[in-house]
């Protein structure tokens, strides 16, 4: 009785299961400042939604959770709007490239493979990096030293780039180039993997740009709204894989979960949050790697060929 038919996916799903999935992902989204798409997309695929629909629909649901997440972060004054503008500008360019890349790969039947490989490489690398760093920070705190490794006078190669801008909210004076590049890479990933990109943007801003963790989370969640919105429209227009009914169900659960997530996040220290996120990222990477390496029970797959493609 709780079955709902999805008009684009052309399958029937359980309303309660999908609401719960949305809520769980929304909770993580609010807690860590990530879109949660890197969990949502694989979960949707596991529950029987075709991969292509999971990617586009995931992007649409992230719009909703990130709107409510960003408002909560905005109330806490955690958003650097100037930084966001640069990230969004880069993100839109990356999204365009990503949608067309995915369309090409899908027609060649290699989308699943390349998407999974990219997930494994990215999540594996980012997860390991964050885990080692956050564990080191936790040890430092236990030893009674300050948790933050940020030293005001320290400069890296990023600070040698031209086009310098002032970012008062983040207390930074850095080049506009790194945020634009980070934005475009994340935009590409959003279109390509159906992820918000927080799992790469958050560490990139912390470790490359050396922004404070709380500002990073607010800024990341704010820019995700715009990039996922663009990706949603692009997928609807060019790949016809957006299922708005599924997206709305997931969003309803996600928005509720997101509010609890933001509150839960306040209870933990930055380095603890990073360690937990890292563990989760690594678990998803491992799961995807196993799927690629283990012998599949069914070697064959079939796919419809789009008329005109």
């Amino acid at each position: 009785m709780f079955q709902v038919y999805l008009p684009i996916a052309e399958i029937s799903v359980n309303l309660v299961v999908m609401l719960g999935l949305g809520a769980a992902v929304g909770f993580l989204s609010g807690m860590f400042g990530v879109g949660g798409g890197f969990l949502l997309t694989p979960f949707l695929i596991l529950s029987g939604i075709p991969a292509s629909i999971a990617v586009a629909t995931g992007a649409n649901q992230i719009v909703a959770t990130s709107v409510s997440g960003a408002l909560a972060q905005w109330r806490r004054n955690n958003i650097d709007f100037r930084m966001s503008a640069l990230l969004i500008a880069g993100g839109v360019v990356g999204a365009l490239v990503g949608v067309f890349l995915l369309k090409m790969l899908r027609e060649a039947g290699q989308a699943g493979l390349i998407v999974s490989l990219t997930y494994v490489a990215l999540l594996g690398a980012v997860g390991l990096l964050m885990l080692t760093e956050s564990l080191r920070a936790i040890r430092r705190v236990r030893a009674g030293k300050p948790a933050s490794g940020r030293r005001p006078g320290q400069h890296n190669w990023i600070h040698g780039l031209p086009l310098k801008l002032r970012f008062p909210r983040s207390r930074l004076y850095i080049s506009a180039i790194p945020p634009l590049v980070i934005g475009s890479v994340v935009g590409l990933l959003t279109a390509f993997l159906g992820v918000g990109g927080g799992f790469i943007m958050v560490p990139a801003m912390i470790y490359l740009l050396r922004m404070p963790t709380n500002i990073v989370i607010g800024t990341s969640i704010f820019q995700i709204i715009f990039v996922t919105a663009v990706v949603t429209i692009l997928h609807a227009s060019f790949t016809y894989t957006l299922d708005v009914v599924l997206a709305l169900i997931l969003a309803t659960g996600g928005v509720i979960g997101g509010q609890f997530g933001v509150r839960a996040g306040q209870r933990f220290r930055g380095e603890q949050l990073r360690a937990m996120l890292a563990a989760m990222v690594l678990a998803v990477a491992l799961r995807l790697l196993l799927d690629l390496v283990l012998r599949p029970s069914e070697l064959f797959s079939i796919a419809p060929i789009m008329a005109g493609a």
Partner: protein
Amino acid sequence: MRSALSLAGLLLAFSPAPALAAEAPAVAAGPVPREEVQSDLSTREISIQSNFTGIQILIYGSVDFSQTNAPDQSVYDVIIVIRAPSRPLVARRKERVAGIWINTPGKVFPSVPGFYAALSTRPIRAIASDETLKELGIGLANVSFGRDSKDDSEEETYRSAVIRLQEKKKLFQEHDDGVAFIGRSLFRASVSLPVNVPIGRYTADVYLFRDGQLVSKNQSTLEVNKAGFEQMVYLLAFQHPFVYGVLAVLLAVLAGLAGWAAFRRD
């Protein structure tokens, strides 16, 4: 309303048989009338709405001028084939390359039915010869995918993979005992359309066999369409994809705002 019409159809189809049976001795001197099969479906139109979880349809019919003498000694065999419109499809096989399972380019089958079900009174190969079945495209082994396999074993592997995968999704079905005779001339069969059925105009072909020979054939059609809200979403998504995308984003933003407004604490 529609079911009432169907019922009327059923009665009409059924009623001539006794009358003709009574006449039969009178015309015995003339040529024996040839059997004819009549059939219809319990529903002519299926609307897919939000509560759609699949549907069972009933196919019924009768054999006019039946020459079966006793209800339990039917001389006829009936095969019913339900087909959805065909679409091109690509089948790919995974191979291990450098420790990772990847898709090979695969084979394209130009026209694979989106749904195919063969129902019969007994195993189809016992009913008619392989040539006849192949010619009529009856049975999963004989469905045309718009591509000649020419006894190529590689090709056959792909073809059987397509059949296997479609069967797993209940989009291909074969039921040896799917058709049952009731009395001398009436028969019925039911088929379950799964939730993932493609939309379009389906055909239900009813073939009447006697001693391995096709004696009569009848076709009915079935429209499967999305309806109401589902149809609106579907049409918008495929005819005005940009508008659909923008609306989806606006809905998501509204959902986000609503969630925030409901949970704010200040």
